[in-house]
């Protein structure tokens, strides 16, 4: 080259050329950006996605209000403490999410998901009404229930209301529908058993399965049967056996105690009240608790099962 790097007569045109190039790049960037958001791309947008009466638009606000991105990633951006949420709707489905979100501190059991399927919104959203068809359609829910169901999670319980839960599900439905150009990459390493074998050297799933399948013979003692039922139905994800508040009221010392209701009245927690609170939990809401979070177990539980749970509640002392 004829001019040295320190030669000012060459330096000036070079600098001008760099600035022109920069302007050109800005034009390219703006053009690419415009093309990215044209409607012809067919990208999913939140205003077209809903779940029952709930809008994805509102769900996004809930997602931000709880700073979900502070622990999870969404389209891969956020924190790395918990799993990515972009496709969780696609994998686990709305009923599993509805069972999980109110009591995020515990993993939903199969019965807890079954209770959610009674919701007409779930019918409309999933197109299935039996748990078997649901688990067939959302294998992620089946794997979650089988391996983790009834256990505790690492996530705190959040004070989500019924509406916020529905809105979040709508938002997660929207993100699942987005075209993210193939991210997260498809898993191609074979069956879950094989992948667990590769990760841990043992088949954790095969070991867990018989324990879940081997249902204990129906206990003759109603209280013992009740204790088994509250575990199977995942009730303990929200209700503590002492008098502490988890998501719903604690059970310890509840029987025969005086309960203040949201409408200002007081009732005694007798057998009839407890049975009603299981069958139609929204009939009487305890003061300080949000309505609509607990599903109705009216059609899920037989009369003797409700009675067994009530009998179990009799045995729990205040601690």
């Amino acid at each position, binding site marked *: 080259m004829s001019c040295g*790097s*320190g030669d000012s007569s060459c330096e000036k045109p070079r*600098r001008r050329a*760099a*600035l022109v190039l*920069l302007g050109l*790049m800005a034009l*390219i*960037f703006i053009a*690419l950006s415009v*093309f*990215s*958001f044209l409607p012809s791309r067919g990208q999913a*947008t*939140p205003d077209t996605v809903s779940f029952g009466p709930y809008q994805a638009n509102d769900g*996004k*606000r*809930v997602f*931000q*209000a709880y*700073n979900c*991105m*502070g*622990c999870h990633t*969404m*389209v891969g*951006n*956020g*924190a*790395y*403490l*918990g*799993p*990515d949420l972009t496709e969780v709707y696609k*994998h686990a489905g709305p009923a599993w999410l509805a069972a999980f979100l109110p009591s995020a501190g515990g993993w939903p059991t199969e019965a807890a998901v079954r209770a959610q399927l009674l919701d007409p919104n779930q019918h409309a959203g999933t197109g299935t009404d039996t748990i078997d068809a649901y688990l067939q359609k959302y294998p992620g829910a089946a794997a*979650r229930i089988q*391996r983790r169901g009834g256990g505790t999670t*690492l996530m*705190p319980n*959040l*004070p*989500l209301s019924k509406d*916020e839960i529905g809105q979040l599900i709508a938002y997660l439905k*929207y*993100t699942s529908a*987005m075209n*993210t*150009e*193939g*991210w*997260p*990459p498809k*898993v*191609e*390493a074979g069956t879950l058993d094989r*992948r*667990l074998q*590769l*990760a*841990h050297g043992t088949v954790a799933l095969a070991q867990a399965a018989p324990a879940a399948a081997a249902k204990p013979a129906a206990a003759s003692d109603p209280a013992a049967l009740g204790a088994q039922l509250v575990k199977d139905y995942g009730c303990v994800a929200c209700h503590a056996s002492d008098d502490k508040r988890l998501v719903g009221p604690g059970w310890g010392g509840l029987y025969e105690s005086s309960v203040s209701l949201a409408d200002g009245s007081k009732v005694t927690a007798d057998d009839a009240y407890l049975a009603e609170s299981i069958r139609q939990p929204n009939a009487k809401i305890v003061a300080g608790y949000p309505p609509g979070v607990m599903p109705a177990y009216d059609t899920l539980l037989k009369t003797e099962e409700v009675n067994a749970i009530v009998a179990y509640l009799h045995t729990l002392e205040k601690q």
Partner: protein
Amino acid sequence: MQTEYQTQRLSLRFFMLMLVLFVVQVIYGMILAAQQVDPTILQGWLNFNVARAEHLNLGIMWIVCGFIGAILFVAPLLAKRELVAPWLVKFLFYAVIGIVIWNFFTQFLAERGIAGWWLGQPWLQQGLEYLEAGRIAGLLILVGFLILAFVVLRTFPRVREWNEVHWGLGLGVGALAVVWVFGLFYVARLDLQEYFRWFVVHYWVEGVWEVIHISLIGYFLVLMFKADVKSVGFAVFWGIALVWLSGLIGNAHHYFWIGTPEFWQFWGSLFSALEPLPLVFCFWHIYLDAHTNKRPLENAPAFYFLLGSTVLELVGAGILGFVMTFALTNVWSHGTWVTAGHAHLALFGTFGMLGIAAAYYATPILRKVPQFDPRLGKLGFWLVFTGVLGMAFAFAIGGTVQVYVYRILGLDWFGGDVNRAMGTYKVMLPLFGLVLSTGAGVLAYDLFTLGRRMRPQAAVDAETTPHPATGWRRPLTGFEAGIWLLLMWLFGTIITLGLLSFNLPHVRVAGDPTLPYVLAGVGYPGLLLVTLLFVWRFIASLEARASAPAISPLLRVLPAQG
């Protein structure tokens, strides 16, 4: 050197505030590291997302305080007159404290799901990574940036008299405010929201902060080594030009998977692969400019941190950014701990260390103790430097395991599968974090009390006895610096190949992680060790150079510019 302008003294309070925020941020970091090991720690009181929001926001705030301090210190020197409106600067100081305290409390509202929606905007907190502050704090921060821009631009001489450093800082403080505006709107579409969120995050860091960083490093080299302003100006202009030429479209590397079209993968992979160029360029210039004279190092800690800043900029931002900038490697690293290794080295290393360097340069001058005891500062440097390198190692290797278990094997149960596999590295994080925290404490103590403590005379004598410039301390030639640089890139290439190897059917389908694990196991420790050794070598040569023989001019690879 003495204080030439009275208003330079205003920078001192920002440096002290920077140190307080730094220490608090590090405490939050330790809580987060403990929660990574056991997420139930403090659950219900200080949830991970709130602690992380504070950790990120304080990180940004103390780096900005460091910038403000440094800019206020050099602006009168560049303008050759006092700062205009010093009362505005004092107001800015209390405003920053107020915003930090306000944001501290509002972030807790995320635990109750309260964002403060009004007029469609979240006024109290908005739950977006890096931009967690609500609209109230966001608007106040914008006012703060406008105050800074006003003070700096009014203090500077007329535009016709600007040199490259004026241009760099002038554009920097102006763009700081302009880019921030893109984060002040609620966007309903997730893809569009992420598009604009990266406008703030990427263009701040790689557009604006980088420009301020290059200008400040350049000017501090002028102040410390009496480097030629013209030569530094050449480096500043082309540094900034290369940053913008590569970084403008380079932002596309954030648009691979957020729902924007596939063509971004081409543009992002191509242009952001060029982003290390300005960083190599600056790395090389700090070598040249630091070697323009042969006098003993006057202010060792300030130079240590200046060097650390430039080297970690190259290694953390440049090389560790490069390895994950291609769509084929980013598809694996995206959303994992691998990116956190890059982020800690790049953000703390490049910008944090610059702020500390500026504080070490300015504080002795402003407190009139030019002969201060540099030993605590040196100790602090080595603690934070090794601490952050170790943390990057834990993040990077833990992240590689995470990619395998989470993405290749598709196991998404963090409690049962992912954390179990990452366990060792999750424990390593708070251990190295403790080293960094100790260093942060030492630095804060040293700078708070600098000039207010008695200094033992023996230490003075020990400091002034130069070591012989032989062996490890022999003068660093351009050729040798080039070899170090090549080694860094060699290990960077190995890391890139490691991430790339996740695409092989042997790994992805057959599920054998050996190749990516071996390449990461060689690449990351190699890169971080070379970085540590190079800084050690550079400093050893510089400290001994008073007694060094002249370097043969033939060994200089590039002539000094100008």
